[in-house]
């Protein structure tokens, strides 16, 4: 089990809501979709690669065969799934500090949602309703969402620069080069492994190394 893949943390939170308020929650989401100002806080925080909210109506749990028992649920459920940069606490903290009203809007109709302030009730709510990933994959463990976005703009600026500067005099090239660097000075942070997410995570990584060593030893013995 691991909720961590490089610089990303994979969070799953599943929470009940009354079937009729699920409809209102859907409307709230559609408001957010059409009025991006609702998402300004999230965009400015810039910690998320991709996130989604999915309402599972109480009678829409997939049933593929008659032999599969039919779910009989009182509530509909909301599955929140996020791929964010940073550790669990950092993420929850930042969201609760920066956009408490935004969070309350997204969980407005969920049973026993405590509001994002005070923080510790919110902490408990999220932890209580979180399901751990059994496998979590990230195509770029070494990159944050900020890195992916700045890499994109740098790529375009660089290839454009390359195409446009071939015929310049040395003098003009030097000027253009300075401009290139200045206009991309915020995309030139060093790349590398992310900071340790937690001491628990470090411990799991240690165990993995140990397991690997033991299995190698066993293989050698057998050979």
């Amino acid at each position, binding site marked *: 089990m691991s909720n961590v893949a490089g*610089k990303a943390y994979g969070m799953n939170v599943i929470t009940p809501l009354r079937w009729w308020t699920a409809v209102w929650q859907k409307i709230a989401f559609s408001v957010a979709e059409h009025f991006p100002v609702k998402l*300004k*806080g999230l*965009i*400015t*925080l*810039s910690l998320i690669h991709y996130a989604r909210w999915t309402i599972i109506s109480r009678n829409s749990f997939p049933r593929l065969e008659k032999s599969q028992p039919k779910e009989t649920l009182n509530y509909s459920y909301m599955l929140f799934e996020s791929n964010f*940069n*940073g550790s669990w*606490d*950092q993420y929850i*903290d*930042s969201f*609760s*500090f*920066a*956009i*408490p*009203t935004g969070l309350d809007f997204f969980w407005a109709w969920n049973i026993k949602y405590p509001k994002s*302030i*005070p*923080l*510790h009730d919110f902490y408990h709510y999220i932890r209580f309703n979180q399901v751990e990933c059994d496998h979590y994959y990230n195509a770029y463990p070494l990159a*944050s969402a*900020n*890195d992916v976005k*700045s890499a994109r703009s740098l790529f375009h600026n660089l290839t454009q620069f390359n195409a446009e500067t071939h015929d310049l005099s040395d003098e003009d090239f030097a*000027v253009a*080069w*300075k401009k290139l*660097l*200045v*206009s991309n*000075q*915020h995309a*030139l*942070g*060093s*790349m*590398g*492994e*992310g*900071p*340790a997410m*937690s*001491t628990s995570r*470090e411990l799991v990584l240690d165990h993995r190394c140990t397991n690997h060593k033991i299995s190698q030893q066993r293989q050698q013995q057998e050979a």
Partner: protein
Amino acid sequence: MNRPLDLYDIQGNICKGYGRFGFPKARYFFLEFHDSGFAREFIGKLLPLITTAETWPAEGLAGKPRSTTNIAFTYEGLKALGLPQRSLDGFPQEFKMGMKPRAAILGDDGPSAPEHWDPVWQGDRVHAWVSVNGQAKEFVEQRFSEVESLINQSHGGVSIRPGHRGPDGNLLAWQDASAVYENGKPTPKEHFGYTDGIGNPYFEGCGNNPQRLAGRGKLTKEGKWAPLATGEFILGHVDEAKEYPLAPEPHLLARNGTYMVYRKLHENVQSFNDYIDNLARDFDGSRDMLMAKLSGRWPDNGAPLTLAANDAEKAELDARMGQLKAKADDGDACAAGQLQALQARWIDFTYEQDKDGARCPVGAHIRRANTRASLETTKEAFNSPSALDDRRRLLRRGLPYGGEHGAATDESEQGIIFMCLGASLERQFEFVQQQWMNYSNDFKLGNDRDALIGANNGQLTDKHIVQADPQGDKAPFFCTHLPRLVETRGGDYFFIPSITALDMMAQGIVDPT
């Protein structure tokens, strides 16, 4: 709104940086408890010597003691004193673990790794920290002897744990610290030559002059400075999340106490000077300006780069200061007012007009340590402009150490005794150290680290970017191959109890039942 603080119940070092109040000398020493009964008796006897947070006059030495004394405990120390298990269980995880097992979070690797720390930190035997600050060295010595004699009376229940590396590699029983002196006068300098310790947070009830609020508090939606919530810094009071910080039981144990980080940070002065000298040759500006671009403040007087971003502006600022000072000295009240207003801008500023870092680089030390609402890159995106900063503020304490013995090298003993206080070690100190000093995603600068205290290793990509003005014709400047300028030589996490809690601990009556 929190009610007024009971300053007589709070230890003095929580509300005051003694250095600023005319106490430039200090001795820190660490206790080991061998018998909980005698150790408790010792604490009871020490209690009358403990300095509280009572208000002192800002100027002059009248009404102040000649020396101060404060005490704090590690988790192991609280255990050794026989605190009930239920009380112990209520402390937060990082405090219980102590600083050494947090090395991966704190970037204490390579030369900073715990196995290289001073001998005093090896093992788990540091139980308490005692600090004595003094107006002069003799007063420190006097108070130290008083405490020492109490220790000697403890029937071996308490001892001073030795093992602080001293100037000649010899081991000392204590850590002396002192402001750096120039021309016989204490200065706010540290050994690299920077002016340090400017701009501590202002919180509700701290007892400081409200004139000191601007630049030290939090920024409201309306763009005004307001005091930070007391609970960010002192347990038992409401914090910025409108709740009481997590704290051990019973209330009386935690209330009016807080947590403290103690770190002995060695400064590689030779490496620093060589690095700056070398880099200054390629840099378009003076050596001082280059130093300022790393820290965010001019080394000589601590003026922030937001106020003077280059040599020309700095010369202008200095000239203006000089003129105003001369006029003020001649009794010109108007000039005196202007001078005061100008000096207030050492603290009262944001990066609102400097989003690109063309004045103060985005990765400069002070911009990392205190982001001053700069993370709200889109207006009104957050609940308030400084929403992401308000819960990451640190009360900085401490003094430089060493450096008295001739020319400083990397090997000679000098550095900073870094202490910082807050209601959550993890959310405040550890976050700032890990995410803002040793990482840069929040600044959109990838994995770049702080040039001065970051865990750099002299590689090409261990760098700091001095951003250029997007409208200008200059290129950004890259400080590459940053060496490890600061090394951790030891430290731990401490709990600073209130006077009430100390008294109850001494009596052995802390009871969460």
